[in-house]
């Protein structure tokens, strides 16, 4: 009897032990390992940085970057306060003029200070999202049409195959010239530089989205198409009820792919064309060549990476929200 009890308690502790071990394993897999990875990277980075000397000083290590994050934030605050004061002064002046002369039309001039790091981040984000959305509006319907019609596919495929491998940066000079020739208006809603960047982003998003959407649409399960035929669904309903939901996974694959490319291309385009955004920030700092430049560029590099990662994660969560195909490995 006693031995039996012993056995049971022994087994009991044994199984709790197992649970704890499994839990520890899980925690170490999902939290500890990534942290370890980051720590090792930071160590390697700072030793490497210490050993690299450039004409602009030592290569920035983690400490220098952290310092710049604070600096850039303070510069941003300072710039904002300056802007506020600028507008305040104008209002005071206008109020005074108005008191002297009731017919005076008050004028507010916009503040034209230097764009801060934060402003550049916002500019790049707006540009990439607008270009991406514009591409989606064009590419998804086109991809569906190409996927549904074999003849359209045969007709368009060579064009897609030729333009797909072209780096959108090669388009940039042409885009710039065409935009400055055609986009003329006295009071433009968008700056020309914005339009240039946007079209470049759109161009590079277009092909992956068209291709993936059309592949998704043309490889729909034959049975589902037969269901639609038996039900005699009209064309639009067929697209809405069968084609679109069935190809959501493929459409999102294309969208994630192109958003990733778009973010990389946009930074390069901004550097090349001096269009406002993170790329211009990097280029300006490089041209500036102060002792802080390298650490500011390094900060920008990390921020670019972080934003790219967050963009991909947000696409992923939208995808898993919309997609019926929970089995697809979401990575």
């Amino acid at each position, binding site marked *: 009897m006693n031995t039996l009890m012993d056995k049971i308690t022994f087994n009991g502790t044994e199984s709790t032990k197992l649970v704890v071990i499994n839990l520890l394993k899980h925690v170490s897999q999902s939290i500890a390992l990534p942290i370890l990875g980051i720590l090792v990277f930071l160590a390697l980075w700072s030793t490497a940085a210490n050993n690299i000397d450039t004409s602009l000083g030592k290569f920035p290590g983690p400490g220098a970057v952290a310092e710049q994050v604070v600096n850039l934030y303070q510069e941003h605050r300072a710039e904002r306060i300056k802007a506020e004061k600028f507008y305040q002064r104008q209002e005071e002046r206008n109020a005074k003029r108005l008191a002297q002369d009731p017919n005076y039309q008050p004028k507010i001039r916009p503040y034209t200070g230097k764009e801060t790091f934060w402003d550049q981040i916002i500019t790049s984000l707006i540009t990439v999202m607008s270009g991406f959305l514009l591409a989606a509006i064009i590419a998804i319907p086109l991809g569906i049409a190409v996927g549904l019609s074999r003849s359209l596919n045969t007709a368009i495929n060579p064009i897609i195959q030729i333009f797909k491998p072209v780096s959108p940066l090669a388009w940039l000079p042409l885009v710039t010239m065409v935009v400055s020739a055609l986009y003329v208006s006295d009071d433009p809603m968008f700056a020309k530089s914005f339009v240039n960047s946007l079209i470049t982003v759109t161009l590079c998003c277009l092909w992956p989205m068209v291709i993936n959407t059309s592949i998704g649409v043309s490889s729909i*399960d034959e*049975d*589902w198409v*037969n*269901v639609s*035929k*038996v*039900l*005699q*669904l009209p064309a639009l*309903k067929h697209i809405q*009820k*069968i084609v679109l*939901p*069935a190809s*959501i996974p493929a459409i999102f694959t294309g969208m994630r792919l192109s958003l990733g490319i778009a973010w990389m291309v946009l930074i390069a385009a901004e550097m090349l064309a001096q269009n406002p955004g993170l790329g211009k920030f990097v280029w300006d700092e490089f041209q500036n060549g102060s002792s802080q430049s390298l650490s500011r560029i390094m900060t920008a590099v990390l921020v670019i990476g972080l934003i790219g990662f967050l963009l991909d994660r947000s696409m992923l969560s939208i995808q898993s929200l919309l997609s*019926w*195909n*929970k*089995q697809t490995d979401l990575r």
Partner: protein
Amino acid sequence: MKSFLEISHIDMVFETPKGPFTALKSVDLKINKGEFISLIGHSGCGKSTVLNIVAGLLKATMGGVIINDKEVTTPGPERAVVFQNHSLLPWLTAYQNVELAVKQVFHKTKSKAEIRDWIEHNLKLVHMDHAMHKRPDEISGGMKQRVGIARALSMQPEVLLMDEPFGALDALTRAHMQDSLMEIQDELKNTVIMITHDVDEAVLLSDRIVMMTNGPAATIGEIQEVNLARPRNRVALSNDPEYNEIRSNVLTFLYEKQRKIETITGKQSTLDETEIKEQIA
């Protein structure tokens, strides 16, 4: 007497890279209203092709199908199909899958409330009302097939076409499904064409068993009447001499007269029933 459904002199020739392939040659069959027909034959002989031509999903090279004096030209909800792999839309729940069909067929004739009642009625008929808001990946294979049948029944078709509806299910589930189908059939008296590779299933469910010869150029070899009284009970039938005679007739056709060429060589006389079933499937 004029028949309700007439498959008339059907030839089917597929264009393949190796040249034309005659799958079916002069297939003729007359089916009465309310009749339950099984199509049985070795795999690849052309059963699905016959069914798809009746459904309107394939166009026969020669001949045609006439239902209620009208020739079949396109697919339509009056010839509902239950596919082998359930073919439910995975992004819709069981209810929504049936709803898509019901809305398409009855949107002009039924009110919103009537549509909802009709969807629920059909899911109840196949005993799926408890899981009607689950998606296909949350229910078992048998349950998916039930929803597929509910979707087909909900269209109130003139003919119900089923392509190996229980082929992918385990034996026990299959038996349950056959009992359910018999129950439903007693109530609705649909005209049904069902493809099967299970001889017992064919005898249990059918009024007539249509046996097809091997392809190429497959056609109807023999037709076996099944005049067993309904309702039928699988346990009681297993000792019924008439049932066993019908069963052995079908087996004889498949195994003696239409054995596959490959299986003749080697093991001629030692085939037992399980081996036959494997060949048929």
